């Protein structure tokens, strides 16, 4: 065997290929060497080949800026070469470099016909590593019975079927009649395809009522034996991105399970719902306390089972909020509902608290005057229920954060006009304010005031603050990995803080959630499509990783920290972590440029 082939078949994703495809690649392979500082592909030109770095180092440049480094075993030129599209970057060697150069046509052929091979690249090399981070999580199946239940038990309706020759109109009326979102297309009892709501959309554009189902069905259908565990169905859903799975018994159709059915079975959100009801019905602090403890445990269980940060945080925020609302209702005279507006700050303000840390709250008072005694009792009660007091005293009972609307406005104006380090720190906490209890109108007014009074100087200081902690990313990966990586300091905070700066600048502070802020910024074109996508993925991954890490700690009864250690990461996690930190660093660079941070403050 020729040595390059031997080399290729040992490395991913070439190792996924069977011999005939690998031979095809090798048949279009050249080994090329470049002296340092050689341009292999110019920006805007079509890459002449797909390149794998065998030794040396290649820089990808956008103009004069290095966007990325490609080191041994890594690929460049892929998208440009196989789509025959202009390259986004110039590829230039930084050292003497030897590359394996693959013929673009042959490579494209293998790429198009081998899905595992292609997904490796589309997931990893091109940075859209959503699928990749999913892969990284896939192995964490729960051992709990719920995931081992047979898929067949989830079926509640007899299968709704039609033949491939039926018209779309007939199929749709079947769906209507049986109130289902899909029809299984059968040949006898054997499934040959499925027509779902999603396919119907295509009919609207490309077809007509009388079009035969065969033209629009998804085929071949993805089938699962009725005896397979629900967990298999779940991984199948993740892998394929579809939401209707056909369940078969032998080769007979047994029914359809949807992503909703599967998630409902898998995620013990049912227990969260039960706890939520318990919170609503609680009549004293003791009942709240026991419910809260149970919620915390259930949440960490779910985190350990691989439920994702976004899903979990969305669900849990309303539960935590309800705990606070119940406490206020216990302690407050119901007649005085309009007296203050209870606000959450920081991560709770952003709806990003999953495993609660401590209290971060404040009030906007009505002109009727202070409520120090009442807010003190609320803070005490929250502590009693299980939410520790804030060591930095960001609490409603602290007279400093116990202000009328006018006082708040003045305070923000002062912070913006005198951006001292203290004031900048306050801004990073108080710009994420969210109503939890009371009439939200004063907060909306305050936000308008904030948008109007933010100074350029303060925005630049905030941008500076968001770019202070640069992720420990070097040419060859994560630096000092042996000492662990502080996910909060180098990933989560820089992104959340940076996104807040953009949100302030674009008057979007009424949106507090980082994910929603990124999406809103993207929609108003304040963030590029690609960067927004990268940030969403990176943020979700970092939060997931931290959540899992903290859930482990909680389960072992230790205090959770933000320091992730190499031992906790498998190879996939490490790769995605590296990508996520790179995205963070690139985001910081963008902020520095946009707000002129480099030029000094």
């Amino acid at each position, binding site marked *: 065997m020729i040595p390059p082939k031997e080399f290729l078949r040992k490395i991913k994703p070439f190792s996924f290929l069977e011999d005939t495809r690998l031979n095809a690649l090798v048949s279009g*392979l050249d080994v*090329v*060497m*470049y002296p340092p500082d050689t341009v292999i592909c110019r920006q805007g030109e079509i890459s002449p080949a797909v390149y794998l770095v065998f030794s040396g180092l290649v820089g990808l440049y956008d103009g004069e800026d290095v966007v990325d480094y490609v080191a041994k075993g890594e690929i460049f030129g892929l998208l440009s070469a196989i789509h025959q599209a202009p390259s986004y970057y110039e590829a230039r060697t930084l050292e003497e470099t030897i590359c394996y150069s693959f013929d673009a046509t042959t490579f494209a052929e293998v790429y198009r016909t081998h899905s595992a091979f292609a997904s490796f690249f589309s997931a990893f090399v091109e940075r859209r590593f959503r699928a990749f981070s999913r892969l990284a999580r896939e192995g964490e199946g729960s051992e709990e019975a719920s995931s081992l239940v047979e898929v067949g038990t989830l079926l509640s309706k007899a299968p709704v079927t039609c033949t491939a020759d039926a018209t779309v109109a007939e199929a749709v009326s079947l769906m209507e009649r049986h109130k289902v979102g899909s029809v299984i297309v059968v040949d006898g009892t054997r499934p040959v395809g499925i027509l779902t709501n999603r396919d119907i959309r295509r009919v609207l554009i490309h077809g007509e009522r009388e079009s035969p189902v065969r033209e629009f069905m998804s085929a071949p259908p993805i089938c699962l034996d009725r005896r397979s565990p629900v967990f298999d169905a779940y991984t199948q859903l993740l892998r394929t991105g579809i939401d209707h799975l056909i369940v078969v018994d032998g080769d007979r159709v047994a029914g359809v399970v949807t992503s909703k059915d599967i998630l409902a079975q898998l995620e013990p959100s049912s227990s969260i719902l039960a706890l939520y009801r318990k919170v609503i019905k609680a009549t004293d602090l003791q009942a709240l306390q026991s419910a809260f403890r149970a919620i915390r445990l259930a949440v960490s269980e779910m985190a350990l089972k691989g439920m994702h940060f976004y899903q979990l945080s969305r669900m849990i925020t309303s539960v935590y909020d309800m705990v606070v609302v119940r406490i206020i209702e216990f302690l407050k005279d119901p007649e005085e509902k309009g007296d203050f507006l209870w606000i959450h700050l920081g991560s709770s303000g952003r709806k990003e608290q999953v495993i609660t840390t401590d209290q971060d709250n404040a009030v906007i008072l009505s002109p009727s005057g202070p409520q120090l005694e009442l807010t003190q009792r609320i803070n005490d009660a929250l502590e009693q229920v299980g939410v520790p007091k804030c060591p930095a005293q960001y609490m409603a009972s602290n007279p400093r954060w116990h202000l009328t609307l006018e006082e708040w406005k003045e305070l923000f104006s002062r912070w913006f006009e005198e951006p001292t380090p203290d004031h900048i720190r306050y801004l990073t906490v108080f710009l994420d304010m969210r109503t939890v209890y009371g009439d939200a109108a004063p907060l909306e007014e305050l936000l308008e005031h904030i948008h109007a009074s933010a100074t350029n100087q303060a925005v630049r200081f905030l941008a500076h603050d968001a770019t202070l902690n640069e992720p420990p990313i070097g040419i060859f990966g994560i630096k000092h990995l042996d000492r662990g990586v502080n996910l909060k300091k180098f990933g989560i905070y820089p992104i959340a803080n940076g996104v807040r700066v953009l949100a302030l600048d674009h008057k979007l502070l009424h949106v507090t959630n980082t994910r929603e802020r990124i999406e809103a910024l993207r929609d108003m074109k304040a963030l590029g499509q690609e960067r927004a996508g990268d940030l969403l993925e990176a943020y979700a991954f970092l939060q997931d990783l931290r959540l899992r890490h903290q859930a482990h700690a909680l389960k072992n009864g230790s205090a959770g920290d933000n320091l992730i250690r190499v031992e906790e990461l498998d190879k996939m996690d490490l790769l995605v972590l590296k990508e996520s930190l790179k995205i963070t660093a690139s985001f910081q660079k963008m902020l520095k440029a946009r707000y002129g941070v480099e030029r000094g403050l």
Partner: protein
Amino acid sequence: MRLEDARFAAVDLETTGLDVRRDHIVAVAAVPMEGTRIRVGDAFYTTVRPEKYRLDGMKYHGIAANDLETAPTFEEIADRLWKLCDGILVGHCVHIDSQFLSRFFGKMGRSFQRPLVDIAELEKWIGRREGRARSAEELSLDALMIRYGLKEHFRHNALADAFFAAQIFQIQVIRNGIQTVEQLLGILKDQRVCNAHFLL
């Protein structure tokens, strides 16, 4: 001629011995190069059945006698090999391979004469140029592979050896800024090392 416009072929033969007048070829490998670009996809390797030769008990470089029984004869591969070796021959002590090829092509009435680039000789020149003469051991293929960072690989199959010769040649000429064929062949004129003992 610019080096980048020249055609090369890295070759390696496996033979029944080192006597170019009597021994037989049992395997041939050729890895073509366009300039310094190694065309892995066009590489050629085959075992060769020696005619009128007792195959019993023969075992060379892991090639078993019964593998050779079904192998093509030199005549059968001669055309393809001729086409592949239409440029400058590159190899480790390529003089010997060249002489074997001349004899076998000669038997078919073809005169095989190609310019030769021996990577050991090239290395000897590089050593002098760097002011540190290479010892005979340092000129062996294994030592060159280590020097050029190619050592992780399994070798000692004609195809692997031919490929590594191509790779070493590629690094040698690029690192030393050799630009033309004339320059290259001029360098090699007085660097004969090929009769060194390490060959045996």
